[in-house]
Structure formats: C-alpha cells, structure tokens
C-alpha cells in the first residue's frame, strides 16, 4: 500500500497548497460586505470542464496506483513467475506516443486557428489510438497462443488486467475524441472547440504516462525500484 500512500501524500501537498491560497485563516464573522473587499477566495478562473478533467485524472490515477500497490504486494509471493513481455508492446508504445503527439499537434493548430490542422491531428490521434488498442489485443492473442493464460500465473493475470484497464480508459477517451472530431467535421467554430481539443490532448498525455509506468512495471524495469521501496517500508 506504500504506492497509494505516496500518491495521496502528493495529492495532499497539492490540496494543502491550494487551500493555503484560500484564506482559511480568515475570520468570516468579521468580514461583512462584498467579497471584493477581501482578497482571494473567489471561484477559480479555469473552465469547469478543465477542473473536472483534473479531478477525474486524480481519481483515475488513484485507481491505477491502487492496482500498482496490489501488484507490488502480490509480486512478493513465491509463485510469481514474470512473463516474457511480447515485443509487440514496444511497437504499440510507439504508436501511443504518436497518438499523443498528434493530439498535441491538433491542440497547437487549434491555438493557431488552423481548422485543417486540428482535424488532421484529431483523426491521426484517434486512428493511432485505435491501432494501439488493436495492437494490445494482438499482444494478448500472442501471449495466449504461447500458453500464457490469464489464470495460469498471477503475473499473467496482472498483465491482462492492467492492459485491459488502461485500454478501457483509452476506449472511453476515444468516445470523447470521436464527439470532438464529429463536431469539428460538421464545421463548429474553432474557438468553441479549442477547450475540447485541449482536454483530449491532456487526457491522452495522461494515458501515455500511465502506460509508460505500467510498461516499466510489466517489463520488470521498475522491479529494483519497487524492491527498494518495499525494503524501506518494511
């Protein structure tokens, strides 16, 4: 559970920093009058959807970190046999990076009011995300063909579980991306769509980051790191 505690500590620091800007030491019973008379404390200036996405990313991170916590606890039992990660995953990772880059491209184009660039970026990002998902399914198939079934070892179970959870999050993102692309396609004003494109790009970068962490975990790169953490805490 050390991973989730660490994650919550980071969140607590962020929340604490934000709260410290909110004049929590004010004496509201003495402060009568319009809020403008007193500094701080107004609603945020960010768009609500962006804050909403931020909160959602915190929740999704908590979910992934909890999976990672469970992974690192289960790993220490003797029956754990790491599975050979299919090489295909590297290709998939490259595709996911491309997907993220395409959406960033789209966002930059949106800031330049370049409608065509936005559409190309969105479509390229969406297409490469679909290719990534197909690649993940192919990796599953290859593992299955090689006899690494979901229930034959906890390492396999976690491999399938973590890739599935990540894939489902990406599939959910594709719904939002699809809606954004459809609106752009039908000729929505680029100024109205900028936020949607930006949120898609943020979500994609987040999922890329999550995937890199998961990949590190699944390929065993982070084993040493996890071991050090475990020793520190036990």
């Amino acid at each position, binding site marked *: *559970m050390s991973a*989730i*505690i660490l994650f*919550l500590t980071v*969140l*607590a620091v962020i*929340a604490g920093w934000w*709260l410290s800007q*909110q*004049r*929590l*030491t*004010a*004496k*509201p*019973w003495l*402060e*009568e*009058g*319009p*809020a*403008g008379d*007193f500094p*701080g*404390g*107004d*609603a*945020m200036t*960010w768009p*609500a*959807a962006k*804050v*909403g996405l931020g*909160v*959602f990313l*915190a*929740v999704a991170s*908590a*979910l992934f970190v*909890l*999976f990672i*916590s*469970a992974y690192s*606890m*289960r790993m220490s*039992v*003797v*029956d*754990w046999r790491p599975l050979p990660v299919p090489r295909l995953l590297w290709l998939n990772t490259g595709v996911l990076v491309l997907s993220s880059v395409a959406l960033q491209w789209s966002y930059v184009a949106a800031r330049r009011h370049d409608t065509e660039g936005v559409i190309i970026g969105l479509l390229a990002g969406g297409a490469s995300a679909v290719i990534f998902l197909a690649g993940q399914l192919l990796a599953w198939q290859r593992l299955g063909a090689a006899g690494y079934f*979901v*229930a034959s070892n*906890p390492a396999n*179970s976690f491999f399938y*579980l973590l890739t599935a*959870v990540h894939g489902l999050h990406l599939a959910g993102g594709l719904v939002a991306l699809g809606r954004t692309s459809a609106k752009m396609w039908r000729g929505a004003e680029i100024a109205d769509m900028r936020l949607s494109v930006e949120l898609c790009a943020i979500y994609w970068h987040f999922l890329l980051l999550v995937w890199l962490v998961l990949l590190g975990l699944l390929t065993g790169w982070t084993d040493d790191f996890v071991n050090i953490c475990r020793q520190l805490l*036990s």
Partner: protein
Amino acid sequence: MVDIPYEGIRGIPPAEVPDVELYHPRSWWTRYVFSQDAKVIAIQYSLTATAIGLVALVLSWLMRLQLGFPGTFSFIDANQYLQFITMHGMIMVIYLLTALFLGGFGNYLIPLMVGARDMVFPYVNMLSYWVYLLAVLVLASTFFVPGGPTGAGWTLYPPQAILSGTPGQDWGIILMMASLILFIIGFTMGGLNYVVTVLQARTRGMTLMRLPLTVWGIFTATVMALLAFPALFVASVMLLLDRLLGTSFFMPSLVEMGTLSKYGGGSPLLFQHLFWFFGHPEVYIVALPAFGIVSDLISTHARKNIFGYRMMVWAIVAIGALSFIVWAHHMYVSGMFPQFGYFFATTTLIIAIPTAIKVYNWVLTLWRGDIHLTVPMLFALGFIITFVNGGLTGLFLGNVVVDVPLSDTMFVVAHFHMVMGVAPIMVVLGAIYHWYPKVTGRMLNNALGKFHFWVTFLGAYLIFFPMHYLGLLGVPRRYFELGDATFIPSSAHSLNAFISVVALTVGFSQMVFLFNLAWSFFKGEASGGNPWRATTLEWQTPETPPGHGNWGKELPVVYRWAYDYSVPGAAEDFIPQNQPPRATQLAQGAAS
C-alpha cells in the same frame, strides 16, 4: 424576513448569467424522469436509497427475530441469516447512507447553498443517478437468482466469499461485485459534479470561508470518496476475476469440499488492505456530511452562530486526511505484521482530537443559545449524544489489546451501529425534517415527528446499549444461533429477546415517519420560503420549492458568512447571507 428599504443602496449588481448555459427540459420525461436538474436528481437518489434502505430494514427485523427467538421461525435458516447480514450491511453503508448523503443531500443542497443554478455537468449528473439505479437493481436482483444473495458478510473477505459453502456462491457474489463496480462508476460521475460545483460555481461573494458547514462536509466527503472508492473498485474487479476466470489474486491454495482447488498463492490479506483502504474512509464519507449538516441544524435552531467556524472547517479537512491512514485498525486480528497495529492504533486515537473539537464546538454552540426544541433540533441533539457514545467505544476498539478479545463479539456491532448507523441516521432524519419544507413547500407534522424522534432515539439506545454488555460477555457476532454455550447466561438470551422487541418497535416508528412524509406532502401546513428563519442561501430562493434554475433572473450575491444569528443590534435574529451590509444598518436604525 422584514421588508428592508433597498432603494439606492444595492451593494453590487448581481452577476447576470447568460440563459443559454442552463439546460431546459422540453417534455414531461425530461422534466421528471430523465431530468438534468440537480433537485430532481436529488429526489430520485433519495427515493431510491430509501426504497432499498427499507429492504435492509426488513432484513434487520428478520435477523432480530432469529436472534431474539431462535428456533421459532422456520422460514429463517442459517444460510439465509448470513445473507441477511451481508445485504443489510452492504445496503445500509453504501446504497443507503453514501447515496443519500452525497447523491441526495449533495445534489439538492450544493447548488442552492453555493448560489449556483445547477451542477456544472448536469448531463453527467443525470447519468450518475441512472447508473446508481442500475447498481441498486442489480443488487436487488440477487434476491431472486438461484442460490440467492451472497452471504459472505459485507466485507466479502476471500477466500470464503467465493468458495462453495458460502451462500450465494453461484450468482450472488458475482452480481454483488457487478453492482459495486456500477455504484462506483455512477458515484464517480456524481462526485466530479459535487467537487467541481463547489470549486467553480460559487456565486459572487461566496468565499470558501463563507460556505455553510454542510457544504464543507459534503465537499470533503466527496473528495475522500473519489479517492477511496477506487480501492473497492480494484478489490471488486480482482475478486470478480478470481471467481470468474480462476485467477489467484486473493485466493490461496486450499482444499475445497475435499479436493484441492484450482487456486494458489493469492493473498487474502491483500484484499483486506484494499477493502479497508476504502472501508475506513467510508466511515467518514458518511460521517462528514453528517457533521456538516448537524452544525447547520444546531446553529439555526439554537439561533446562535456556530462556535469556532474556522476550527470546524479545519477539523473536517484534518479528519478527511487522517482517515486515509487508519484503515488497518480493522485488521488487528487478520494476521498482519503485529507491529503495524501500534502505528494504526496511534493514528486512530489521533483522529479523536479533531473529532472531539467538533463535539465541543457543537456543545459550545448550544451553550446559552436560544434553543428551539424543534424536531430537527431534537434529532441533532440525539446525534451528538449518540456520536459521543459510539465514539467512546471506538477508543476501546482502536487499541490492539482491547480489540483482539472484543473483535468478534456483539461489542463491535454495538459500536459501529451507534457511531455510523444510528448517529448518521439521526442526522438524515433531522435533515429531512429541516429541509422538507424547502423541497415540498409544506411542513412535516410536528406531533408525528416528535413521536418518531422519541421512539427512534430511546429505542436505538435500548437496542444498542445492551449489546455492549452482550459483547463483554463474549456473545459472538454473525452467529445464526448461540446454542448452549456455558459462558452465555440465560439472561443474555432474555436480553436478546428484549432487543428484538424494541427493534421491531423502532422499525414500526419508521413507518410512521414514512406516513408523515406522504401525508404532509398533500396535507401539511404551508411552510413559506423560510420557516426556520435561516440565513443560508437555499432559504432565500424566490420560489419554494425552488424553480428550475433556482434563482430567477439574477444570481444572489453573498455579503456575509452563513451564521449571522442573533447579531446584536440587528432587527431580526438572523441576517440572510445575501443581505447587503447597509441594508442591515438601515434595519438596525429602524429597529432602534
């Protein structure tokens, strides 16, 4: 509210909000069924939660019948008893209390109290309710599937939860997991709304430190729930895979019905860590909204500002943060590394500090207040007493050496029913009596309300106080019948029968309450907009019940905190949050 001469002395012009931002229902279906209005969603949440809560109430009667009069009722067998326990616990904690406090009160009160027209993502909010309803239906369907609902206990500990021999092993446990997963998805949608609405949609002048404590409580509880429920999600998904695909996340190798099972190497302790990482914050997810609401009830009905508002806010935040590092105090007897126990015992006892601060502040708010013993106030007082009682036994159970012998006895049942069963329910009931006039425009019947309170309050004590005594005798919990154990005297059996009779009586008084809700809806005395003469924004709406968009043309502007009761020199003993300062001074002048 008195008429105050407003001409020429407006503070600042209210913010005009463009009309297009607000979603408008176009048909009966989108107005009352697939509504995106937080108030309608709140009522849908509340009714659904109450309906499934009644099922859990009936289950508790059945359990009490069995415990009080073992052997008398042939329609209850040992397996069913376990199923009743499981479903009663799960429904009450998650599908009733969590849904009611956050989905019900959260949806209704947050937009009104912060001065918003609605939640920030109304469509997602609507989706949240329908997913919740689906979760409830899946849960309820387990009563009708072959094998019935799961009897694994509400904690669903593997390995027994998914092994044969545990009732509901076929379908019950699978549907329970599915229902929990749905609930968490639905809650996350709602939770995003509650958090972002408080962050983004506060009206002008509504600084964080002017928020009513109800909003602080619900807000903090929602943040906690958003971070804690994923742990239950992870545990549910992994247990579901163990059950369906035969993975061994949690399942150790063991012999099942004489044959070696397919499982091996899994860690039941891992499940317990995940479960309680959710389970303990869950206690405060239920308690913090109750803390917030009860602060507002006490302040309003004692006509006095809340004592130590800042300290109350800090305590809520501190409790929220601390509650994430105490989970293993539920696991002292689980076989985890023993020295962990001392760490978790320490953090557990530290939580008593902010909690005690809150109790002192409630009592000090009452001190020399102008206490009106209305029904909401009675329930609020009932809450304080019950919470203190339940909290004190928590100090016993928080210590490893005391918990180990008491852990599997009725003492624990008594403790958590007092502290997170009866106490939050007292607040729920008080809050319903308090806000019912705003929701319906009518008062609940006072005489029936007082009857309801006294039977519930005294009854709850007659039920749960003796249980502590049973627990100290060593009477085990979760047992279908006690048999002829020599350490259990016959007086314990008589006491059990007595508890059962009281439990049925208290249950009956809840029917009186439901009758009151229905009867007053049609025949209750008209309440007007602000029957309790309260300061917070929800009582200042132009219409009662508040119309679509809550505020008419202009959003309110907030000039003061939520607790200006009995301000010296003011004409009235309350000053609404949206009353400009100069208007108050004029009113003071008029009064003197």
